[in-house]
Structure formats: C-alpha cells, structure tokens
C-alpha cells in the first residue's frame, strides 16, 4: 500500500496537525517508508491468536465515588494560555 498526498492531508486533518503542501509531500515519503516497514506484519497468519492489549491481565479497580481532589483552579489556570474570570478562553464555537 502507498499513501497518496491526499491521504496524508486527510490524516493530518484528522490528527489536527496543520501541514503545508511542501510538508505534506515530505511526510508522504517518510510515512510510506514507515508503512513499508510495518507491512512485514501482513506476512504472518494470526488467525486464532487473541489480540494482546496489555502486558498484565488486569481488571479495572473501582473506588468509592467521592471527591478527593482539592479545588486548585487558580494554580491550574496560572499555566493556561488564555483565561478570564476563572474560565478557559477558546475561539467562538457557537454562532
């Protein structure tokens, strides 16, 4: 398989990473090399093998539904790019 330039732009859009035309062409070549490496996987018959998501067989621990974290809004918002009146500022999303 081989990624087209449009594929690369579509992936970048899905990943919310802006790319210029020149960058897209550059990534296209590199990503195709990487997928060339990844293609080795297809040579193995894995029918009947259960996917392994994790190194340890764990089940999720549960805890009481109780608030434990103290309110540290001021501390956390000090490192935010844009805040006002205790709110995080983003571009307008609803017209």
């Amino acid at each position, binding site marked *: 398989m081989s990624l087209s330039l449009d594929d690369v732009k579509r992936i970048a859009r899905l990943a919310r990473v802006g790319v210029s035309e020149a960058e897209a062409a550059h990534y296209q070549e590199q990503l195709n090399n990487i997928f060339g490496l990844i293609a080795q996987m297809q040579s193995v018959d894995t029918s009947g093998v259960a996917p392994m998501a994790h190194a340890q067989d764990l089940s999720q621990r549960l805890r009481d539904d109780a608030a434990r974290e103290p309110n540290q809004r001021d501390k956390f918002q*000090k490192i935010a790019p844009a805040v006002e009146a205790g709110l995080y500022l983003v571009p307008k999303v609803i017209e």
Partner: protein
Amino acid sequence: MLNANLAELSALLREKKLSSVEMAQEFLARIEKLNPSINAFVTLDKGMTLAEARAADARLAAGESGPLLGVPLAHKDIFCADGWRTTCGSKMLENFIAPYDAHVIAQFKKAGSVSLGKLNMDEFAMGSSNETSYYGKVKNPWDVKAVPGGSSGGSAAAVAARMAPAATGTDTGGSIRQPAALCGISGLKPTYGVVSRYGMIAFASSLDQAGPMAKSAEDLGLMLNAMAGFDERDSTSLERKSEDYCRDLAKPLAGLRIGLPKEYFAEGLSADVAKAVEAAIAEYCKLGAQTVEVSLPNTNLSIPVYYVLAPAEASSNLSRFDGVRYGYRAPEYGDLNDMYEKTRAQGFGDEVKRRIMIGTYVLSHGYYDAYYIQAQKLRRLIAQDFVEAFKQCDVIMGPTSPSTAFNFGEKGDDPVAMYLSDIYTIATNLAGLPGMSIPCGFGDNGRPVGLQIIGNYFAEARMLNVAHQLQQATDWHLRAPSI
C-alpha cells in the same frame, strides 16, 4: 566524591563529612562546568535544589536516616515536579510549570533525595538519539561527535559525565537501556506496572515504564527501592508486596542458566559489540553460569508491531495538547479547528507529528483491523516467545544495541534507519518484561558497549544480582570518560 556510589555518598552525609547542601553544590559546580558542552540538563534551579538540600540536612540533623536522604539525583524532564518547569523535550511545554508531583518524584522526596534539575530527552520520549529534543541534542560524554542514545539521553549523559550520581529515566521501547549502553552506565526498565506512571507524561501507556539509571547495579537497586510500589492513581500499577531489590546482590551465580537468543547474535550486529558481549558471557561462565541457546523467532516483527502500537497510543495520549488548558498556543488563528491545527503544527516537532499521523491512520476506520488488531495479535506471539525461552533459562542475555554510539546525523533523514537500531530492546516492552543494560567493554571506536539482561516478570532482584556479580568481577562500570 564525583565518582562515589550512592552508598558512599550516603555515608559521607551520615558521618557528617559533608552536608547535603555542600554535596549538591559540588554537583551543581560540575554541571555548570560541563553542561554547556554536554547539554544534559534543560532546567536548573539552584534555589530549589539548595532548598531541598537544606530540608534534607534538617532531617539528617533530626536523626533521620535512609539510603537516599540528602543524596542528589536528577530527573528526566518527563516527570512532573511541582514548581519545576517540565518540558518533555517539547516546545509545546516550554513554559509549563508542573502543578503537582509525579508519583516517582513524590517517592524520592519522601526518601529525602535532592533534585539537581531536569534532564534533556527526545521530544515526548520519541527518539533513539536525543536529536528530536526542542532544547538541542545531548552530546555523548565519551565523544561529543556521538549521540548519547535516547530517549533518556540526558539522564545517561549526566551520569556518565558525573554531573549526577544517578538519574531517573523512562523506557517505552528501549529508552533507558539503549542510552545507558551508549553512555557506558547501568540502567533498568522494571516489569510493566512496578513503578507508577502517575505524573509521568504519557507516550504509549501500555509500554511506558520508569526506571533508574546509575553507575552500578547496586545503585539501581537502591533507586528502585524508592521508585517501586503500588499507587492507586495509576490504573495499571500492580498491587504487590514491597520488596528489597538489593536483597540478592551478593548471591553466587553457580548454576545460573543464561539464555542466548540466536536472533540477537545474527546479521546486523557489529563485530566489536558481539566481541564485548561474548567476553562478558565468558566471564559469567567463569562465575559458574551455563549458557543455553534459545530462540525468539518473532524478534524481527517487534519493530513493525511497535511502530503501530506506540504511535496509536501516542496519537490518543497527545490529543490533550490542544492549546486550551496548558502548554503552547499559536499566537494567531481563526476558528477553533484552526487554533488546534496551528498550535499542534508549531508546538510539535517532526518526529512527534509523524508518529501522531501514523497512529491516527492505523486507528482510523477501515484500517483498524489490518494494522492495530494485527499488531496486537503479533504482540501476543512475541510475548509467548519469551514464555518459551524462559522454560530453558533464568535470564536472557545479548547486546543492548547493534552498534556503539553512532554519530549525529548518521541515520539521515529516513526515520526507518533510526527505528531499526532498537531491534534488541523493543520486544521486552511489548512483553512487559524487565530488562537492563550494564557496561561490558568498548567498541573499536572507544565508545561503550552495553550487555542486555532480560529477566522473567518480577525478576528484578535476580537481574540486579546477576549484574552486580559481573561488576564485582570486572571494572567496566567504573570507567568514566575523561572530560
């Protein structure tokens, strides 16, 4: 003092030959002298370091004791440390002051160690040469033309150059072991789940594991004693009884069965690395060990599997960097999507963007089964290879890296060439097994060679015993670069 091990440093403090403040100052002076040429540290804060040292001195004066109390260490810049800038090697977090402590950092504070600063690394731990750091590459103290390895390259270089007695690292595909090998120090990646990932900036969560990097196996054990342990804030932290990882150091090795995977000594391994590794194995045989050939037939698949699974997890983990709550935000943008795209285009480096794109693609509709699920199935086969191998041996040994440290720029512009250099370390992460690297000689170019020791699940104490015994019989771990 700069060459002293952790036990010796602790003794100097206990016997009041030196205060923690004085000790920290000596290392800070060494850092000030060498860091301009090595670039191992990205953040230094003398005021915070000395405040921690004064607090340790007060605890010592109050009669408290502990193997790390007052001892200076340095931390990979992937661990959030309250009040410290924590960049993860990225422009995205250039001005990020962590608002809380990672579990590992909290554990070291409890033990009373003193932080000398934050260590350079590949951006978001993605890299094998430290060339992807936004803060400039780290130089190998053995030869400044050579890479230190990655991603924990700053940690390895700092310990090798004696700027810090020991350091923390993290290992997702070899990021503790490979830089340890290339810089001639010791490093241990514990069994997945032994050390909490809380507050450790996530790359690939099913593979990431923190561990110690130091000059000797004994020091690794002392560090791991502080780092390991259950933490409910990490959903994959394992609930196990705490153990003393130094308990078996002195045990003789008679009867030890060493498995040598034939795939780790095949084509692609440099002759000088093979020679040093074989000499170390011969030394083990003198100490009473026997060798047995084992096979890990799916070794070659570990790289493609890793480069599906790790980017997939990374693309999800790194979606949090959106320019809203913390980190970089592009100065100019239109709507929300434009802000995301510009922020991430400007805030992430090339390697990070490549991996986010690979991950996005393999998880996307229509490709998920062919890539992601197929990789997870192969992951099981790779893990089963080890189960079979450990039926015949107690530990597995081989080279950590196929060559000694390569030169900057040597791998060119093709990421695949760099990826292939992690052939011997990645499978261990996929299986979740513990692995370590210890120095075992030098290559033809005078650069260090690392011996990799892979253990069965939770065999850290045994592996440290095996490493320590070689370090009692040889002095490779005591060699330091002349800088």
